[in-house]
């Protein structure tokens, strides 16, 4: 899992079955100091995150397990909204 900042939204009307109605967000992956670790990516949202939120995500096959139904083609899912990061900067 990893931290990320929601920096945008994606609208895709025609989607694979199972993805209908799922919210897609553009997320910039971050380390705990707030440094971007790689290029932004699209993630499916399961927690009603919004733009600017600091979130945590799960990637690869486990991303699909965050959804209902769960056998869907996604490789990143937002699974939590961060209230607090407690670590040395």
């Amino acid at each position, binding site marked *: 899992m990893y931290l990320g900042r929601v920096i945008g939204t994606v609208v895709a009307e025609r989607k694979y079955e199972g993805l209908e109605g799922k919210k897609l967000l553009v997320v910039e992956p971050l*380390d*705990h100091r707030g440094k971007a670790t790689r290029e932004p990516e699209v993630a499916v949202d399961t*927690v*009603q995150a919004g733009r600017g939120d600091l979130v945590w995500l*799960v990637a*690869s096959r486990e991303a699909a397990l965050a959804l209902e139904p769960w056998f869907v083609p996604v490789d990143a899912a937002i699974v939590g909204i961060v209230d*607090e990061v*407690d670590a040395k900067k």
Partner: protein
Amino acid sequence: MKLCRVEGTVVGAVHHKVYDGQKLMIVTPVDGGDSFLAVDRVQAGVGDTVLVNQEGNGTRQLLKMGQQVPIRSLIVGIVDEVHRDE
């Protein structure tokens, strides 16, 4: 598995239900690389060197929460000592 150092914790009240009651830690690989998050089941603390399993199937077996568990990284051990040839 990866050798990592525990840097701190992350708290978030709004989360997927499988994260209820889980301790979420920030870990950094000791051999370099960006920090990431792992669920802690061995009561690790900040500054500890730990063993992190980064693979969902093993994690699902260890957590025993069923098959639909969107957790991938799990701290599975606290490392006391590492010997390696330089």
